[in-house]
């Protein structure tokens, strides 16, 4: 592999460029007119403008991306996360042109992208899934099912994701009201109106497992990430190892993730997401068939470069490590720095006047922006990922505290102050938190 196109933007494009540069691989960046001054555009070997700011006209514009890939004669396309990363038809189209898609096969992307199919597949693999329905046609049937499993339930679109396309319902009235509007919306927005109902697991933790498979039948897991600190069903802080689970559960959930991956002959990097209740019972939620935003914490504790692994596997090489050779050490926590109000979480696009990351030992920064960059309203508002690693959790938290006490960002609102507060709280320090932690904390403040 000598030259790859990165069909993404911001920090993840920069992240992929870094590994490629180290390995002597040329990179082709694509960018919308809103992103022409972004660091990744300069950092890539070649860069092409592909369209107007709205994602459908640029980062989701398959024709234009494929045109650039052919013109540049790239060997492969790395889709990053979001955008086209879980688009099976894009993966098929480029493979037909002899360009490698850096990810699993299009069939696996498609099967796991439909949450109803994914649930069925996992049930067949013997992996525990959240109690839930198959496809439900109307509100009446949804209500009947909800009464069977008990409220609260989550009404979900089979094609949903990223916190969009799901709604919590407390009773028959809620579900009746939510069903048709959610279904219409899913039809229009995702092009697929299939709905299902899941039991809502209260006081849950979100635990996911990094897996990687090669084309020689090997699949390994690189242990878990605890992603329970969320707002609007979207992750804000992730850490590994989870401060909550026992060593037995850690091994069990890793094995379950590998079984899930084996069921679909998974290749390349992927993540199996689970919800876990207070008794450490865990249930499959979904599988993300791409590199995850929070992959750096797994890299830090395992001492590996997952992008490098992805490239090796895409070239047909075998996994560099066997399961018994994977033994993470230390503790790593990622904080997602967003351009948003730290209290209301409302996005705060605009120009970053100054952005200074203090130099602190144990801190890794994966950033997409710099002083003078503009956070445009067109894309996800994440500015950078701050990854703090230490020999143990206490040390990692201390490193993070030092970082955020010195961190400076001027010009737009950002959630740095939220992390400063969070790092002072005893519940967080003790690892006592669930997915409702941030919403409860903010409700308490009001």
């Amino acid at each position: 592999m000598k030259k790859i196109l990165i069909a993404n933007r911001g920090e993840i494009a920069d992240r992929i460029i870094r590994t490629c540069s180290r390995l002597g691989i040329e990179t082709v960046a694509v960018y919308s007119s809103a992103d022409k001054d972004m660091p990744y555009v300069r950092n890539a070997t070649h860069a092409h403008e592909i369209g107007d700011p709205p994602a459908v006209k640029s980062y989701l514009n398959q024709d234009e991306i494929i045109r650039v890939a052919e013109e540049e004669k790239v060997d492969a396309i790395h889709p990053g996360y979001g955008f086209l990363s879980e688009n099976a038809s894009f993966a098929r189209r480029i493979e037909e042109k002899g360009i490698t898609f850096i990810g699993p096969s299009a069939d696996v992307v498609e099967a796991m992208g439909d949450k109803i199919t994914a649930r069925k597949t996992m049930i067949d693999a013997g992996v525990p899934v959240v109690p839930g329905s198959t496809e439900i046609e109307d509100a009446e049937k949804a209500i009947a099912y909800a009464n069977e499993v008990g409220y609260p339930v989550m009404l979900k679109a089979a094609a949903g994701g990223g916190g969009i396309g799901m709604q919590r319902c407390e009773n028959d009235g809620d579900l009746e009201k939510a069903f048709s509007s959610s279904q219409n919306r899913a039809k229009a927005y995702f092009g697929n109106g299939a709905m299902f109902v899941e039991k809502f697991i209260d006081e849950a933790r979100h635990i996911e497992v990094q897996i990687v498979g090669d084309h020689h039948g090997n699949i390994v897991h690189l242990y878990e990430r605890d992603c329970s600190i969320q707002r609007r069903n979207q992750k804000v802080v992730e850490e590994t190892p989870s401060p909550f689970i026992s060593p037995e559960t850690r091994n069990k959930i890793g094995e379950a993730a590998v079984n899930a991956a084996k069921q679909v002959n998974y290749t390349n990097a992927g993540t199996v997401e689970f919800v876990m209740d207070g008794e450490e019972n865990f249930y499959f939620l979904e599988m993300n068939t791409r590199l995850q935003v929070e992959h750096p914490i797994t890299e830090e504790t395992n001492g590996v470069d997952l992008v490098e692994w992805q490239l090796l596997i895409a070239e047909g090489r075998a996994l560099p490590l066997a399961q018994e050779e994977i033994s993470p050490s230390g503790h790593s926590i990622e904080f997602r720095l967003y351009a948003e109000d730290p209290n209301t979480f409302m996005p705060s696009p605009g120009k970053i006047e100054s952005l200074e990351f203090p130099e602190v030992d144990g801190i890794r920064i994966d950033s997409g922006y710099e002083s003078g960059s503009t956070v445009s309203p067109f894309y996800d508002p994440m500015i950078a990922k701050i990854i703090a690693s230490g020999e143990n959790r206490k040390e990692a938290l201390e490193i993070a505290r030092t970082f955020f006490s010195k961190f400076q960002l001027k010009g737009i609102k950002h959630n740095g102050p939220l992390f400063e507060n969070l790092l002072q709280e005893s519940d967080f320090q003790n690892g006592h938190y669930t997915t409702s932690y941030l919403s409860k904390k903010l409700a308490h403040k009001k």
Partner: protein
Amino acid sequence: MNEIKSSMAGTVLNVMVSEGDSVTSGQELVMLESMKMEIPVEGTEDGTVAEVKVTIGDFVNEGDVLVTIK
């Protein structure tokens, strides 16, 4: 005629009203998705929906008229 405009660039996730509907001030008329957040757009006065100018999936810029109310 009261024009309800988008406060932010984003994609129309849901349109909750149709032409001829009577609406009240503060009622959610349109749901936008911007920067991965669902942002409700509310009516600013009581009236009747004269025109819905967007459909689900449309991309709108800040200041675009979404709904007119008479």
